[in-house]
């Protein structure tokens, strides 16, 4: 068995980190409960945003782990654990589905019998869009993806002790098996939880759109966490600028991927100009939604694109940190734009009630991170590819 000559020493997180996490969670919880009391339907929509945000991020973190195993990528090995820490979000995110569950027919119009009698087209979709099948789908996705995640992460953790190469092989096989399930799962979450909010509207690319946004967010979160960990010296010294350059380059690629998918969807619907499709975009030009719609182009594409375009910026730690935060914000902005117009048709609404759930989400992510970080090594010290990752250079 190989012994990696890593100079990794486990360094505990600053004690403040856990306190902040608990603080955010507590404050978020209080605000969320108040929001739920004040306006349960609106709060359910807010909660839905956080649900799709977190579950997408968790699932795409697992996707990135699988991608590393399948492609035999080397440079990303020291960052893989960060993704592993985020994967359990798949189990935590459903907390945010609870408010939706209690206000189901207010959030999803297709669950409202009165709406169905008015819309015969939607009535025809109830073979797919009915609460029972809806819950079966999301449960199946969480259980299946969750099982894969547990086994893959456990194999990875075991390797720290015995450096067994067979575990890598097993994980490659598991990753291959995961991919079709992941693809189906993320598509269905996108269609069920976001697209079906407007049950009349349809777009074949929507699953890919949700995937592209979530992938970008997961990658931004991993980059951001890596930088934070580096800033207080938790990462070993052999992680150099070259490793960060790759993070920046992939972030840039994923920004472009999202923009490509978003443009494809908009462009084709705009050009064909069929009323059954355009109404969805038109409703996002009502009142102040117009500014939000235009804002998407700048916030989720032009600004981060410009920020990472030049070659040096991709390994500029400071730049990467800002872009990382920015993309997390941009994903919220995008999901808000996708989801909230169903609740408030005349214009965008924003007040303290929108803050509770994201704050709770942030707190929970921090608590989860602290828990996973304390339990497992940050660097997969038994990974057979680690030596090559240490030698990685551009």
């Amino acid at each position, binding site marked *: 068995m190989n012994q990696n000559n890593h100079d990794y020493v486990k360094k505990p997180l600053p004690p403040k980190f856990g306190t902040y996490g608990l603080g955010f969670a507590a404050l978020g919880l209080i605000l969320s409960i108040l929001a739920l009391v004040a306006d349960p339907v609106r709060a359910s929509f807010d909660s839905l945003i956080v649900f799709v945000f977190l579950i997408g991020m968790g699932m795409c973190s697992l996707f990135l782990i699988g991608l590393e195993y399948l492609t035999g990528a080397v440079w990303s090995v020291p960052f893989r654990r960060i993704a592993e820490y985020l994967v359990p979000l798949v189990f935590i995110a459903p907390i945010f589905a609870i408010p939706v569950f209690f206000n189901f027919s207010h959030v999803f119009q297709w669950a409202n019998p009165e709406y169905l009698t008015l819309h015969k087209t939607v009535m025809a*979709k109830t073979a797919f869009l009915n609460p029972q099948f809806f819950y079966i789908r999301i449960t199946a996705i969480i259980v299946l993806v969750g099982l894969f995640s547990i086994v893959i992460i456990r194999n990875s953790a075991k390797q720290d002790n015995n450096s067994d190469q067979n575990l890598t092989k097993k994980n490659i096989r598991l990753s291959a098996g995961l991919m079709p399930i992941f693809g189906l799962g993320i598509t269905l979450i996108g269609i069920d939880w976001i697209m079906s909010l407007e049950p009349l509207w349809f777009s*074949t690319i929507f699953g890919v759109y949700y995937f592209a946004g979530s992938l970008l967010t997961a990658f931004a979160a991993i980059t951001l966490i890596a930088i934070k960990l580096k800033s207080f010296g938790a990462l070993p010294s052999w992680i150099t600028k070259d490793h960060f350059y790759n993070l920046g380059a992939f972030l840039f690629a994923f920004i472009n991927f999202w923009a490509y998918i978003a443009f494809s969807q908009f462009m*084709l619907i705009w050009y064909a100009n069929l009323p059954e499709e355009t109404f969805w975009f038109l409703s996002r030009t009502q009142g102040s939604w117009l500014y939000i719609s235009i804002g998407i182009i700048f916030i989720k594409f032009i600004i981060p694109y410009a920020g990472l375009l030049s070659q040096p910026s991709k390994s500029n730690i400071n730049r990467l940190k800002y872009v990382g935060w920015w993309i997390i914000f941009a994903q919220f902005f995008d999901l808000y734009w996708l989801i909230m117009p169903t609740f408030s048709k005349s214009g965008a609404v924003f007040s303290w009630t929108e803050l509770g759930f994201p704050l709770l989400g942030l707190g929970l992510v921090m608590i989860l991170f602290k828990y996973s970080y304390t339990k497992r090594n940050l660097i997969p010290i038994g990974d057979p590819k680690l030596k090559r990752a240490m030698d990685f250079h551009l």
Partner: protein
Amino acid sequence: MQTDYTVETSVVEGNPSFKQIDELIGAPLETLPNRNFLIAISITASMLLTGAIALGFSLYYGIGMWGNNNPVGWGFDIVNFVFWVGIGHAGTLISAILFLFRQKWRTGIARFAEGMTIFAVMTAGLFPALHTGRPWLDHYLIPHPNDHSLWVNFTSPLLWDVFAVSTYFIVSAIFWYVGLIPDFANLRDRTKNKIKKIVYTITSFGWRGSNRHWQNYEMVYLILAGFATPLVLSVHTIVSFDFAVSIIPGWHTTIFPPYFVAGAVFSGFAMVQNCLILLRKVFHYEHIITLDTLEKMNKIIIVTGSMVGYAYAMEFFIAWYSGNSAEAFTFVNRAFGDYAWAYWIMVSCNVIFPQLFWIKKLRRSIPVMLVIGILVNVGMWFERFVITVTSLSRDFLPSSWAYYKPTLVDGGLLIGSFGLFFTLLLIFTKTMPVVSIAEIKAVLPGAQPTHHKAESNNGK
């Protein structure tokens, strides 16, 4: 077989010396064509001749010789065009995108794949040029001031195609040629033939292999790879717009752009893989274009094939989900209507058979991958046929429904396109190094100094 993940597997097997590489890759250029080559080129040239005859009919009698009817105004012309443009995509993916991803295994196959790109785009270009009916007036496709005050329609994706494909062709050709320069210089220095010496001297632009030359070369190569990457994606995106911006059921669907790109890479890889299998056998390049490389290509085939399968499934699902009866009819008609045979060829070749590559044994078996590669190309050709013809032959007015039947001239042009492509490819293999000599040398074990540590690469 136990894989050792701690070491990077070399992309070239057997650790050949630089001299051996020179001789091996130079060999086809320094020997006269043998019997096999002559047999091969006479077959492809006959196919080309068939195409030329069909072309003659199309030009002399007009494109009424084709099977197009009303309502099927688009037939083999667009099907062949999309098919060949798609074939070209694999070359750019291998040479540019995999270069940006620093995938060393691309080295042995990039040059050949890039050549295939150029020939495929040339072949593809024939069809739109012909389908205008009066190809001698095709220059009106380019917006230039003229005394007829004719101006192009900038809102039509067909025009964007003109720009996208021609830009793509130019950048691909430059990219390809830049890569060839150091190799031409190498050949110039090796050859003993006077005429060849002159030709290689001109084509190698005075390359001396100096440090300065290499520095400029690397930078140009990187920039061109950066250019080619968005270009290759844009080309098939725009090809998909040809269909998707219209409101024909089965054409107008938002997933078309990424779906077409994935399909193009899918069929392109199958074609490149097929040609490489023959090439490595004939030229004894088995240790340069290794089985591992072919296996990696097969993995890409299964990934892109599954993406295509995903798009089929999404289209079908949304056709039902949309509640649009025309849309739903189109898809049911595809699967069970007049063209069901074409549809099921498409589904089985594109979605079902490539799944066999999940099994490692089959992924590494030359005969199996050869057959699956051919099936994929059959399937992808039929995909374009299904999209184009099924939607048009059953359009909005049932009174005008008609069955599309290609004519002999259509078939002749299709055969001719294959003839043109393979004839050019055969000439390429005897006139230029089909593997990049300079790049292969750079990925040999021990050739790359690691700039972090003073120790040189320990090879194996």
